[in-house]
């Protein structure tokens, strides 16, 4: 009987691990990234007063990334007004183009929070394969949705999810 119990406990443990793998509800891992003016910040401190957060990985050389952020930028004021959402755009430009990030952001007049992940420490900690890559965090700062690549119109899906989170609805997925 004891044996059986142990077996069950073991299965329990495995179930737990499977649970832990579920893509919902993880906090943001800790990594050191930089602001545009060179200050250091740890990613575990990201917060938005209980409102949802979008984390978008991009780079100045990534065309679809910029398309996605341009598309969101066009509607961003409305998104913020309606849901209080904050978009954090994390550039993975390395030292050859990191300084261009500021130029890109200001000339495009993006109103997002911008950081630079120069040696991809945060990208690695977030298990990002390739960019563009987008995460959505709920009001408690847990990752509840993630998406790789950008197709025209994807921003509408993102906004739907943000609206649900802002109004306290549960995500179906």
């Amino acid at each position: 009987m004891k044996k059986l119990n142990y077996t069950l406990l073991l299965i329990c443990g495995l179930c737990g691990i499977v649970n832990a793998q579920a893509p919902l509800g993880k906090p943001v891992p800790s990594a050191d990234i930089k602001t545009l003016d060179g200050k250091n910040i740890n990613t575990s401190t990201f917060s938005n007063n209980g409102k949802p957060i979008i984390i978008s990985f991009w780079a100045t050389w990534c065309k679809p990334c910029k398309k996605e952020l341009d598309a969101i930028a066009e509607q961003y004021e409305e998104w913020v007004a309606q849901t209080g959402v904050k978009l954090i755009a994390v550039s993975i430009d390395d030292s050859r183009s990191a300084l261009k990030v500021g130029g890109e952001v200001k000339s495009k007049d993006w109103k997002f929070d911008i950081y630079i992940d120069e040696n991809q420490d945060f990208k690695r900690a977030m298990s990002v394969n390739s960019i563009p890559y987008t995460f959505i965090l709920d009001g408690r700062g847990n990752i509840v949705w993630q998406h790789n690549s950008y197709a025209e119109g994807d921003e509408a899906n993102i906004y739907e999810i943000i609206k649900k989170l802002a109004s306290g609805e549960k995500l179906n997925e």
Partner: protein
Amino acid sequence: MITTKILQSILKCALPVLASSTLAVAQVNLNTMGLGEIHGNFQANAQYYIPDSTIGAADVPEKMLFNGFVNILYTKGKFTAGLRYENYLNALQGYPAGYKGTGIPYRFITYRSDFLEITAGSFYEQFGNGLILRTYEERNLGLDNALDGVRIKAEPVKGIYLKGLIGKQRSFFTQGPGIVRGIDGEIQFNELFAKLADKKLIFGIGGGFLSKFQEDKDPTLVLPQNVGSTAVRFNLSRNNFSLNGEYAYKINDPSLDNNFIYKHGDAILLQALYATKGFAVMLSGSRIDNMSFRSDRTAQLTNLLINYIPALNKQHTYSLLTFYPYAAQSKGEMEFSSEVKYKFSKGSLLGGEYGTEILVNYSGSNSLDTTNISIDKDTRKKGYTSSYFSIGPQVYFRDMYVEINKKFNKQWKSTLAYTYQVYNKDVIQKPGTGTIYANIAIVDITYKMNKGALRMEAQHMATKQDQQNWAYLLLEYTINTNWYVAAGDLYNYGNDHANERYHYYNISAGFIKEANRIELSYGKQRAGVFCVGGVCRNVPASNGVTLTITSSF
């Protein structure tokens, strides 16, 4: 009694599983079970090869080749542990030959408290801009020079950042012979002094020292076993203006890269930016002299690189623009880059309803102005001398690039680009291949429909050198947010040899759902140089079916 116990166990087991189907409960479950979090990602690339003697696609004896990896990260409280399993059975064509078989070449454990972080095992690290140290990975290129050792990062007071490390570098499934050790410090004054926190002027300085040890087993030469390097840097910004720079110096480091000369190496990098709403101008320049730095004197290609020399030219994405890709010349070069971005605002004459963006970039690179020391006078084997401020006569690269981005209305948007490139293939790729002068034009049009989108890329390159003119047409149909199909043809229509005017066509279809992406493609790939982030490798011609799967969990 026994049945109740079993039932209880089953319930204990089953409940969390059921509970995890809803997010809110899942968190409670994870927290109460105290199991920590596991996440990671996965990628698999498989290619089935079809020989094609016309384009030079070789007969692959295995028929099918495969590259894949899984990263697993486990976090609990202040601890994070991770590993990567890699599988090359056998590695895709064009991938570095050292990747053979399977293994776990990357594993680490990190402890992190408020002011201290300790990592044992594999890690990636960069000091400043990377001029003396950058270990990183570009999985698609097969570049991975991770250190395996110990690293300590500390923030004793806010605004002061210290790092120390020791380790050996990864070389495929083994390690390089050299030991790498280094320390780095950085002070950000606006973080350190509360009085400066809200000042407009933001200022920071940093510096690092890095040394490698490799035993001297050379029967004839007396080689330095310890090679030290040091770098100092600063960052400065005020309102719309930013400036940063770094200077690095390395003592003599005879290696295969520099023909075993005993000259020191140095590098300087300066970058400036002025950016305001709708306008940005950027200038950068570098001078690199004998700065190839590896943890094995005889390593080649991208193997066992300790430092990173950034190429400053614009990083292009359109395929014909990257036909002749520039890679920084760590042996020696003087490089510059300038870029202006302007956005005609919404509602203005040229801006229209959505604004119009214009970008002009001019970048280039030349040799250093060097004088060889004649062999009979070069008693200390210094090889050459170089003049610090004068630019060498040999042009390595030029790129004069103009790009216009315009969104016309909710349906239509386009990108037009034109460039004139000069590419010294002799120096950058292979001696005896000459210099290429190319005019390249790009038209990229997107038509957005109710659900999906249609995109067309038309590209043309005109050159009298190498394989002469090329044309490329790509059609991409995004059916909805999940599915896409694409077809393209790269045509060497202008080849002087009429029988070598090959088509390199490619069709592909992909499925994306959340963090998962699957793509199946069939087509031909020309032999060429494939680059990511300024690091390049040669890829042979191929023909076949490719399956790519990526996933994060």
